């Protein structure tokens, strides 16, 4: 089970990558920007650090390290971190609404017409009734600073930065060498985080406090590690019955095709009811190994199963490995890419949906 909360504080800018893929073409510009860095980036950092420090348990770490995220928090309250809001809740600035089940179909009050202004909610408010979440939202507008905001807007924004490279021995910008040389300027799509905010990940293993290079373009971050509070652990141990929501993207399917739910959810030949969206790409590079390029179900996705999950599989932690696709299964464990479950793929929590027993 996860034991630690890893807190990442940027020192200056961070970098938004276009997924796991970087090339001169994709280094610049704004399309496909992806932030915050996913769990694979932190997993890679921990493994590299352990390797460089020649830690005795490096092999054990490599076999078992499980990291999930990314989430974010206010700097002084990292344990109250924010996770994606389940798609069953639509929380706007002035109004809120929710989806419920009626005769096996999704229904909501269509007269309300609420835009989902918030995408993140505090884990403290997980599965609270919509009214309570929304009421807190309204209260916090009145500047009661001691109250934890139930929902919030993410604390980062993208800024374009133009980087010139200088000639090695002269103080003017490097001139292009030939037609294929892209010259000396490149536009970095950097990310600026609010000063009182941090990124947060869950981990099974510790990491030494210190400064590390992290994410695209390897900007410096400060990393600290603390024990995960018991009531958050309890939440992750809460059994899932019929309905749950993803707080991290999930990859299902096989090595050729990505799909929306594992075969195991199709109990009784009836696919689950879902609230979801278009697929997002999911790919990571670990050392020199480039994993299979896959598509993931976005976080926030809600599943309602026909039957409750069996007791032996009723938390994410108990989801069997075979539900997750695995590339190069025939290879030795430490020769193949990390299992997707070890990257927090599809991390989910139970939720209550009105109309589902």
């Amino acid at each position: 089970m996860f034991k630690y909360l890893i807190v990442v504080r940027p020192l200056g800018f961070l970098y938004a990558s276009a997924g796991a893929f970087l090339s001169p073409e994709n280094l610049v510009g704004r399309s496909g920007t992806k932030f915050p860095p996913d769990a694979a980036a932190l997993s890679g950092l921990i493994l590299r650090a352990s390797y460089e420090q020649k830690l005795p348990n490096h092999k054990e770490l490599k076999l078992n390290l499980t990291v999930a995220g990314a989430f974010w928090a206010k700097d002084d309250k990292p344990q109250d971190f924010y996770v994606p809001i389940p798609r069953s809740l639509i929380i706007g600035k002035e109004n809120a609404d929710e989806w419920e089940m009626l005769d096996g179909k999704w229904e909501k009050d269509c007269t309300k017409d609420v835009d989902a202004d918030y995408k993140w909610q505090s884990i403290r408010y997980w599965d609270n009734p919509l009214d309570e979440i929304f009421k807190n939202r309204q209260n916090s507008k009145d500047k009661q600073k001691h109250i934890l905001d139930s929902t919030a807007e993410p604390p980062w924004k993208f800024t374009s930065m133009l980087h010139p490279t200088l000639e090695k021995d002269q103080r003017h910008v490097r001139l292009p060498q030939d037609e294929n040389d892209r010259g000396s300027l490149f536009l970095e799509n950097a990310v600026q985080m609010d000063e009182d905010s941090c990124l947060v990940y869950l981990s099974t293993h510790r990491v030494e406090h210190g400064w590390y290079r992290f994410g695209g373009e390897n900007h410096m971050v400060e990393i600290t590690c603390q024990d995960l509070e018991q009531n958050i652990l309890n939440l992750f141990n809460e059994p899932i019955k019929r309905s749950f929501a993803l707080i991290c993207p999930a990859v299902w399917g096989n090595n050729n095709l990505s799909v929306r739910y594992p075969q195991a959810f199709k109990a009784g030949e009836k696919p689950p009811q879902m609230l979801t969206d278009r697929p997002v790409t999911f790919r990571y590079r670990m050392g020199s190994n480039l994993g299979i390029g896959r598509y993931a179900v976005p976080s926030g996705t809600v599943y309602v199963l026909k039957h409750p999950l069996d007791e032996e599989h009723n938390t994410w932690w108990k989801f069997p490995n075979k539900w997750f696709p695995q590339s190069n299964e025939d290879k030795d464990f430490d020769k193949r890419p990390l299992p997707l479950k070890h990257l927090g793929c599809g991390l989910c929590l139970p939720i209550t949906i009105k109309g589902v027993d």
Partner: protein
Amino acid sequence: MDVLTQEKSQTSESVSGKYTVITFAPVQGFIEKSRKLRDLYGASQILSYLSWKIVCAANSKNCEVISPAIAIDDASEMANVDIVQGMPNRILILGDFSHNDAQKALTEGWKEIVTACRGWLRDNLQIDDEGWFNSWTRWQIHAWEVFWGSGADIELAMRDLETRKLRRAWTVPNWNGESSSLSGHDAIAHPNMDSLGTNEAEIKSFYKRLAEVLDPSGDENDRAYINENERLSIPELIKRLVTYGAIARHIHRDLYAPTFREVLRKDDKSGATYWTGWFMGDGDKVGDHLKRLTDNASVTQFSQSLRAWGKKFQTDFDKKGRVVYAGGDDFLGVMYGDKQTPKLDSREVIEWLLDLRGSWEKGNLGITLSVGFVWAGHSVPQRDVLQHCREAEKLAKNLGRDRVTIRVLFNNGQFVQWTTPWKYLEWLKDYRDRNDNTGKDANWSHVYTDLAQLKARHAIPPETAEHPSDYLAIELLTLYFGEDKRKMFSKAKDRKHLTGEKDEKSVIAWIEGMILVGWQLCSNI
């Protein structure tokens, strides 16, 4: 017997009056992943074609297609319908048209497109199918999601569709090895892509040959269809290839638009490049509007008006640039100069935007319009401009619709912007400088430097201020644009209408946006 069953089915149809709505996906995503105008154009042609295939299938099943409205009586005339004009991708049908029927029609259309592209590559680049057969097949099967809804009236059918759409229906091919250089995902298409290893030399020679064959007369690093250094995935390749005459005509004779080459024209020989204007817009809450139209006649009427508006918009615009697509209430276009005057006059932009709103109103569509307009520096990559366009349009929608967001985008990626209800765009014309000059002669530096000074001294509070006062900003505005403007700021309701929010911060941002955008677009220096 035949006559009997036919009669029976007709009666039951009119009694139950069953409506069916079809749409498919990805539409936004299919277009969004485009980086070049050519991709965008190809994508919108493909979407139109697929819609058209579904409409044809519905006609051949003797269903009445209510929207998109096509003014023909005879189903056999369907082949003559001008499909190059954007077909909306939400199709409303009266009659029994199953999910399976829709799926079949779309699959058939997409298969024609895929086959034409693959066949052309085989014949013109002498490529053996075998090495990439599986990859093409996977994309042929898994590129689209089809959504279907039905109900006793139009509203119920639409709602049924929306509910079913919540669970999506995608299955997507994974990939090994390096990804497309255009989007950063999906495998690079090349003749041996089915085997896992990517052979750098083979990929290189494929793209070199492809670039040359498609555009033999182009410059080495600036080919019309594809550049040698690009690495595209199969769906991306298809979007490019359908804009090539021989391939397009093979799919359908109307699919090719010969004037398209023009769009990519830079100022031919001089090498000079200029600022361009890009706009993306769509009608507000069209879905809701359709729900209110409960009888077929008014839906058909609405659909016809939309298509008519799109057509007229396209023809009227022809001289100023190019409409990339105008399908239903959705449109995207780019403004650039012509041969005689390659440099656009930025001041005309405001005039044109005001006209656009006027022409939309004249279309009598009963819905308002939100537009994102980006005035972009010459070296901003197309894909970034497109992304800015989308963001700008989204902002116009989020701040309350019936608005335009003007974003002036500089080559270094920075931008200034202003979102305003259409009506107040005109305020820019009321500018009067310190010497009482107006219109073309006005010197916009006066207000611009005053704003900069006041900001620098925090007399106009910065964005970070906890309780900013908008007093000075309003004073500055009335000083240069007229005292009559003041009344819009006195009531919370009016402020909200103007800026989208009630607070003073939004007022400051609105005024600042107006001055910065005005200085960039209206100033004659």
